[in-house]
């Protein structure tokens, strides 16, 4: 093994969080920084050649390669876990920029009460309303504390939208349920596809409060505080699973990389597959020493460092700590240990597939052009007479309908999946189908967690991560309730026929839901019930920080990226302003 010269900072992972940390520390400090990214280099300039549905959206060219590493899944601790032989229900990104290159850019903030889920629920409904095996706990940080960092994130990405709560004042046309915002969005809302406009009008007519999706697919040319300029979105419909060909969608490679590349103190190494975080022992006052990785040529390398940031997405953050023996693995039997607990996956599904008489021209759109409504999210509606807690966002977007993925769903009455009758209906409805999608909260449960798989290995012989994950009655009832609401709106939109979501049964690894898998290295107020403090700093190793949605103790209805980036900003401030002067626990 080759040992390199010590770096001040090593960042594992070159996606949103890793590159944001590299930019912040690289520009604000003189620290030497090495980013290790196991995928390939990427750049916005090449993305125009990638507008090929088959290779990118179906064969998943930008995603992690399951042949090299995947995860195993079982529904409960008694079951035998099997590998996800292809990724499908969530799609981890790979390469510089990570999943931030091929995301949709939908950017709502989490609701204020989401951060105090346990205490607010207990206060309003009593603690016994939480499911018996729940593992819900407060974050240890509030929305108001995060708000300034959310605002910085909005400006970094140039988010397009309409405030609904501006410094405590309700504003017509925005989300009336959102937390107090200190500033209006940097750019106005995006244009609206026809389907979304119909949703808006129908939802309003039913007394709901639709608002434009807060969008990282910016509505007009925008220059951010770092001087990075991006053009307006042109609604080509190639966001999800594609890089943006003109850079209108905020991506790590267009808002962070150009700043980083100008800094001599930051280096990004591609093809670097980190296998372990080295540390000086398993005691309570441990220190990490650096990381070992396999480089692109296959050599084993040790990169010593003063500070290590783990920024390699939810699953790999958790897995690297487990493989490295840092922190006590969670034991669902005794409830001891925090590493791996609170695995969640946002409850996402097409609640109502609506068929219309009029064409929707749905090839036009962007990942985040459309409408949302929060009337049934969080605790925005009364749950005292309902059999479940919390809820989700209802969404009507046009992300750009591509024919391989979208062709073939027909009204249930057609009753055929191939042949002339199916073809006729599928052709007729291809551009007359719209989906109202739910993004719902997923509570944390004692029985949903991650550990190392005893059987299956990755390409280097390291144990795969094992997910023990299934839905509970709360999610099933919530999904049923939200499905009814979505069908009601679809009818009000003038749909002639509606296919309703059949309901959540067991967790289904075949159905794409979202890439919002969360938990495993959760933040919190105490080392007994969390892995890191609210700065993402490891409780046992003060020079190790974890970034990303692995910090989330529960999954919200809102997409996680804004909250992830807000938390990353907060950590960057604490490291740049306090930690580098006085290394040690920040809390």
């Amino acid at each position: 093994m080759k040992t390199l010269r010590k770096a001040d900072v090593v960042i594992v992972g070159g996606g949103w969080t890793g590159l944001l940390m590299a930019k912040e520390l690289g520009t604000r400090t003189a620290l030497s920084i090495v980013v290790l990214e196991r995928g390939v280099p990427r750049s916005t300039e090449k993305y125009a050649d990638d507008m090929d549905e088959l290779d990118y959206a179906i064969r998943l060219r930008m995603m992690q390669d399951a042949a090299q590493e995947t995860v195993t899944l079982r529904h409960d601790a008694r079951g035998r876990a099997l590998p996800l032989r292809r990724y499908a229900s969530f799609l981890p990104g790979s390469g510089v920029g990570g999943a931030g290159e091929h995301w949709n850019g939908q950017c709502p903030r989490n609701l204020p009460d989401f951060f105090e889920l346990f205490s607010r629920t207990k206060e309003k409904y009593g603690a016994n309303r939480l499911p018996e095996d729940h593992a819900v706990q407060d974050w240890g940080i509030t929305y108001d504390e995060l708000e300034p960092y959310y605002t910085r994130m909005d400006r970094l990405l140039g988010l397009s939208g309409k405030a609904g709560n501006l410094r405590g004042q309700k504003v017509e046309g925005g989300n009336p349920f959102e937390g107090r915002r200190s500033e209006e969005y940097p750019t106005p809302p995006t244009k609206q596809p026809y389907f979304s406009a119909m949703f808006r009008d129908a939802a309003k007519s039913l007394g709901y409060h639709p608002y434009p999706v807060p969008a990282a697919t910016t509505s007009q040319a925008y220059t951010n505080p770092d001087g990075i300029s991006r053009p307006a979105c042109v609604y080509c419909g190639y966001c999800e699973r594609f890089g943006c060909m003109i850079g209108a969608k905020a991506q790590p490679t267009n808002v962070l990389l150009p700043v980083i590349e100008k800094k001599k103190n930051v280096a990004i190494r591609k093809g670097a597959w980190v296998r372990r975080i080295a540390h000086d022992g398993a005691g309570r006052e441990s220190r990490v020493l650096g990381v070992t990785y396999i480089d692109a040529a296959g050599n084993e390398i040790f990169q010593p460092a003063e500070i290590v940031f783990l920024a390699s997405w939810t699953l790999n953050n958790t897995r690297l700590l487990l493989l490295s023996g840092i922190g006590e693995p969670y034991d669902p039997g005794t409830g001891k240990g925090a590493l791996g607990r609170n695995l969640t996956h946002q409850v996402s599904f097409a609640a109502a597939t609506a068929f219309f008489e009029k064409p929707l021209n749905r090839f036009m759109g962007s990942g985040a052009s459309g409408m949302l409504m929060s009337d049934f999210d969080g605790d925005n509606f009364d749950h005292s007479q309902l059999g479940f807690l919390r809820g989700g966002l209802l969404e009507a977007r046009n992300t750009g309908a591509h024919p391989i993925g979208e062709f073939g769903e027909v009204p249930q009455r057609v009753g055929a999946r191939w042949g002339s009758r199916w073809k006729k209906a599928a052709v007729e409805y291809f551009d007359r189908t719209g989906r109202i999608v739910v993004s719902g909260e997923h509570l944390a449960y004692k029985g949903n967690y991650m550990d190392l798989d005893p059987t299956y290995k990755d390409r280097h012989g390291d144990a795969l991560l094992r997910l023990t994950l299934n839905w509970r009655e709360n999610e099933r009832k919530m999904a049923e309730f939200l499905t009814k609401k979505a069908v009601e709106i679809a009818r009000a939109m003038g749909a002639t026929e509606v296919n309703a979501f059949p309901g959540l049964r067991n967790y289904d690894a075949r159905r794409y839901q979202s890439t919002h898998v969360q938990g495993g290295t959760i933040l919190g107020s105490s080392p007994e019930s969390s892995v890191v403090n609210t700065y993402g700093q490891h409780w046992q190793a003060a020079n190790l920080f974890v970034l990303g949605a692995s910090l989330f103790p529960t999954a919200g209805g809102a997409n996680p990226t804004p909250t992830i980036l807000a938390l990353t900003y907060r950590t960057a401030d604490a490291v740049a302003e306090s930690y580098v002067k006085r290394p040690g626990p920040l809390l």
Partner: protein
Amino acid sequence: MRGKMAWENRVLVPSAAMRRRHFLTLSCATLGGVLVYSLDRKVSLLRPDEKNKDKMLRIPLRFFDEAESLLVAAAVSRIFPSDDGGPGAKEAGVIIYIDRQLAGPYGSDRYRYTQSPFEDAPPEFGYQGKATPREIYREGLKALRGFDHLSADDQDAALEKIETSVFFSLLRQHTIEGMFCDPIHGGNADMVGWQLIGFPGPRLNNYDEIEKYYGQVFRPKPASLREVSGHSVEAGEDEK
């Protein structure tokens, strides 16, 4: 391209040159216009115009032998028939698409996790079998022997018998892919699939149109990725 690192233990399949070469012979009039690769992989577009109408195309096969290709072509034509509702799998060249996919990295499961043990599992765990798409086709085609000589009704009855098999679900999925993929992949010949459903292909700019055509049909003429980008783009199945 994905960040591929050499997989030392990957099994190499015999290259096309090592196998006896097979051709699929099609009438030019049946295809909507097709990108034809000659033996040295030079590409040319043949359109079904008057001049070519009676011309027979000999398309070099990369994976199937000729008899297999006729079975698959007949089966996908029942899944997506050519009828009074418009062109189908035959005109789009779905068989050419499938042949190329199976010959490429997808067909050999280059990007699927294939470490053992393989176990039976409920469907929600996804396909857990050991067989690659190539092997599933070779095995599945055994049940379709003589299929291309049956009447349409008998063909449908034969497909109904295998409707719940993994093979059939691949056939159906690949038919949709071959109908609607970018023509660089060998299917959707002359963009007949896109024309059928009004999909314009990778259209670069809809800024002025997105809010203009509410409730009205807006159908720009389809253009392929090659036409839009102005240069050739490597298809995943050609990845070495």
